[in-house]
């Protein structure tokens, strides 16, 4: 059943105008909820133009506001923060603003919800639209009230003369009129000093539903007549389907096979029957195209042809500086292939008709997927509607677009709505991966202990220019043409250190290939790059005979960077140690502290992290006992959501550093469950101390990525402090640590 069925259309469709209408929900008044009580269907026909105010906003006759956001809430709290931004600029109470997200028929294309840009870019677009609307309504009120705009003020959606007198509400002004408004990029934004909604830790509207079970995820969505389906992936990467024995599932009531070339699925009325059929179906496959030997992963990277070199940074003359230097150091750092590892395997529902299609998905980019799915289905894009429903946290492009393509092909084949739920093995085995990173770093210091040269080189898989979206599994298996290539997110950033060394160079060697399909994985590349750069910074500090914190401060000029480092060090009670501590060779547990810093992308957040660890000599097990973080993201729209994201970045960052590595044999991924791909558990969680620095006059930057990036090096540096051993390959698994400790 579609739960959001609307009984009565009470809106006015006004073409390119602000949409107005009395919109009473079933309860009589609009509840603030993540999922509107009124059907989104009531808005069909509105503009979704991103340069139109009514692309983003509708003011209703009862004074409530609907925000149409192309950016979606992936579990980050954007649903709270984006509403706050709209309410602030409009001067309406937050409770009156509801939000519709990621529906290609209703919301503007604001690009993918990725790159931690939901608030920093998407939210700023919304603020501009709201500011334009507010300004226009002020001008209209001035006419209506016979007063100049300068004598008017807005409070709770009512415009009135300053100092009192008869006012007029937004709803009264907009009601019955057509307003065709283009977003004015110069519309004045509110002075942060006057913020009343932004900067408050407003609660996320979806939390009550999520803790009581009523919140509807895409996994929970169903349609009348819907079939449950599973897709059977090949036993080896690149294998093609030779034969299917449909009689092998004859005993399962209603189960049917769908085969399109090598795309193989089973559908059934009941979900358990689909699960059983998928397990029971006999199919034979060709050998796969093969995967390289994982034990030679990093050797192979060095042997892979370089497509082109890209110089990220060049300052001074490193050749001369290295030649003249007294002491130099070089090291190689390796970061493994990692998975998004979503808790809920990807799921989607598709209802494909001969002439149109509707797809419900947890996609980060419904507009982009509309074009992708239209191409797969051979439908004009305007006949395809893609609707976002919460997925399980994805942290980049997991299997969400793959599973939606699966559902689309199956629904078209069977002529009924189809829900596809991936298995755990599907998700871990087939989600696009974060690629491996190989970095070689070299630095030199003079006899005064000053760094005179730094060289970073990274070998990374080359992205395909202008690739509209990554190749999906279903069309590939079904033999449907699609643009081929690789997408990774911006994995090259922060290969160059943030420090002011006199001679410096950073080069990316873009290599031709990498073993598994890739996509953006949270803080793409920066987690790996900062592991190398900030670990090596500690190595150079040791060479220079400098304390790691003091060393960093010595080469920084940016006051915001300096402040996070000072704050984290102070909070931690950092004790200056210009040289490594003496390690007691008999101590069963070794204790150490480490520090790391990032200026994210050299343009966004400033984050410093300090860590205290214990290392068990025998087992190699690392226990992080305390973690301190100082974080500056400019303006904080919702400080509690910021804190929550920083916590999540840190704990997921710890998980990736300590445990996570995708494994594969010569034919397929073998880390396909939580035993083979372990992640952080409750018992691993350290004492967290987070200091958030609020800078209301600075623009907000994203908070979903940056704090993850100093985590690996802070850990590696702490392990070095504790043990005297430098670990340059992640994850820092106990067996690796124990082996290193045994020498």
């Amino acid at each position: 059943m579609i739960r959001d069925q609307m009984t009565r259309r009470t809106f006015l469709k006004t073409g390119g105008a602000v949409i107005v209408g009395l919109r009473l929900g079933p309860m009589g008044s609009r509840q603030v909820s993540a999922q509107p009580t009124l059907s989104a269907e009531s808005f069909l026909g509105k503009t979704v133009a991103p340069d139109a105010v009514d692309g983003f906003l509708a003011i209703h006759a009862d004074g409530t506001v609907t925000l149409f956001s192309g950016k979606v809430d992936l579990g980050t709290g954007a649903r709270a923060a984006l509403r706050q931004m709209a309410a602030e600029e409009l001067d309406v109470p937050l409770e009156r603003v509801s939000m519709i997200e990621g529906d290609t028929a209703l919301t503007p294309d604001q690009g993918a919800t990725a790159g931690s840009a939901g608030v920093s870019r998407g939210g700023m677009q919304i603020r501009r639209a709201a500011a334009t609307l507010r300004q226009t309504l002020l001008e209209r009120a001035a006419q209506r009230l016979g007063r100049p705009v300068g004598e008017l003020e807005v409070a709770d959606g009512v415009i009135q003369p300053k100092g009192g007198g008869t006012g007029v509400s937004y709803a009264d002004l907009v009601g019955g009129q057509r307003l065709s408004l283009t977003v004015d990029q110069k519309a004045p934004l509110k002075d942060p000093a006057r913020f009343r909604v932004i900067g408050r830790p407003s609660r996320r509207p979806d939390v009550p539903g999520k803790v009581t079970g009523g919140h509807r995820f895409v996994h929970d969505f169903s349609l009348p007549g819907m079939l449950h389906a599973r897709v059977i992936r090949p036993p080896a990467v690149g294998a093609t389907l030779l034969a299917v024995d449909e009689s092998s599932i004859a005993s399962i009531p209603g189960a049917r096979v769908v085969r399109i070339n090598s795309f193989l699925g089973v559908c059934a009325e009941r979900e358990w029957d689909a699960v059983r059929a998928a397990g029971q179906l006999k199919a034979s496959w060709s050998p796969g195209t093969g995967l390289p030997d994982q034990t030679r992963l990093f050797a192979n990277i060095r042997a892979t042809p370089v497509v082109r070199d890209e110089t990220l940074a060049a300052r001074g003359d490193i050749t001369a500086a290295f030649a003249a230097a007294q002491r130099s150091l070089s090291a190689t750092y390796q970061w493994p292939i990692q998975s998004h590892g979503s808790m809920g395997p990807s799921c989607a529902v598709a209802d494909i008709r001969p002439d149109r299609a509707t797809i419900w998905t947890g996609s980060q980019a419904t507009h982009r997927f509309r074009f992708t799915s239209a191409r797969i289905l051979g439908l004009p894009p305007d006949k395809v509607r893609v609707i976002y429903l919460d997925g399980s946290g994805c942290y980049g492009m997991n299997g969400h677009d793959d599973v939606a393509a699966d559902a689309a092909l199956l629904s078209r084949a069977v002529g009924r709505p189809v829900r596809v739920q991936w298995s755990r093995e599907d998700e871990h085995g087939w989600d696009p991966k974060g690629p491996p990173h190989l970095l070689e770093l070299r630095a030199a210091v003079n006899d005064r202990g000053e760094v005179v040269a730094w060289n970073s080189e990274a070998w990374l898989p080359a992205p395909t220019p202008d690739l509209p979206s990554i190749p999906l599994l279903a069309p590939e298996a079904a033999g449907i043409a699609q643009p081929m290539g690789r997408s990774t997110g911006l994995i090259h950033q922060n290969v160059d250190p943030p420090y002011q060394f006199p001679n410096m160079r950073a080069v990316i060697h873009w290599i031709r290939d990498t073993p598994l399909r890739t996509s953006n994985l949270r803080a793409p590349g920066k987690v790996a790059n900062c592991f190398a750069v900030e670990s090596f910074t500690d190595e150079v500090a040791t060479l220079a005979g400098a304390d790691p914190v003091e060393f960093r401060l010595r080469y920084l000029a940016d006051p915001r960077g300096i402040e996070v480092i000072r704050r984290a060090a102070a909070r931690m009670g950092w004790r200056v140690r210009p040289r490594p501590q003496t390690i007691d060779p008999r101590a069963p547990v070794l204790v150490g502290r480490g520090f790391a810093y990032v200026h994210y992308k050299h343009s966004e957040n400033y984050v410093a992290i300090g860590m205290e660890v214990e290392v068990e000599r025998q087992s190699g097990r690392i226990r992080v006992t305390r973690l301190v973080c100082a974080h500056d993201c400019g303006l904080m729209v919702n400080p509690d959501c910021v804190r929550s994201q920083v916590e999540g970045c840190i704990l997921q960052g710890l998980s990736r550093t300590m445990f996570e590595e995708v494994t594969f044999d010569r034919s397929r991924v073998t880390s396909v469950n939580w035993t083979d791909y372990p992640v952080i558990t409750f018992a691993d969680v350290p004492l967290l101390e987070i200091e958030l620095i609020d800078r209301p006059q600075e623009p907000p930057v994203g908070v979903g990525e940056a704090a993850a990036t100093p985590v690996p090096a802070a850990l590696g540096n702490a392990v070095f402090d504790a043990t005297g051993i430098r670990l340059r390959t992640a994850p820092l698994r106990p067996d690796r640590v124990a082996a290193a400790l045994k020498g």
Partner: protein
Amino acid sequence: MLRVIVNGQPRDVAAEPDTPLLYVLRNDLGLTGTKFGCGLGQCGSCTVLVGGQAVRSCLMPLQAVAGQEVTTIEGLGSPERPHPLQAAFIEEQAVQCGYCTPGIVMAAKAILDRTPHPTDAELKQALTGLLCRCGTHDRVIRAVMRAAATMGGR
């Protein structure tokens, strides 16, 4: 037809006896708060209470719970009348994507029933079989400790 008492209501279910309880709850009874996470009993997203014990519903055949009392996240409380645990999760905003949340709340219910005032370390240990990918752990601990305090050992 097998009978199960779900959230206090007797429910007759026409599903194959080997159907995992998870699918019965979600598809036959419309209780979609309980989530599919792995189907392997590794993550705990599908945790419900059977006779007061936390069980992984993805591995529990329907016939094994016939006649027994099953409590799901929906049976614990509602947005209007949340259980103290749910109220504490809201108070602490101990949710990111929220997919693992129902399973963790149900496991925490069983933990507090057994150990009304756990220490931090006991609680972390007891929750260790429950996975969260977003990194909400710290808030979850705070929420469960808050609930333990409000429930006063009840």
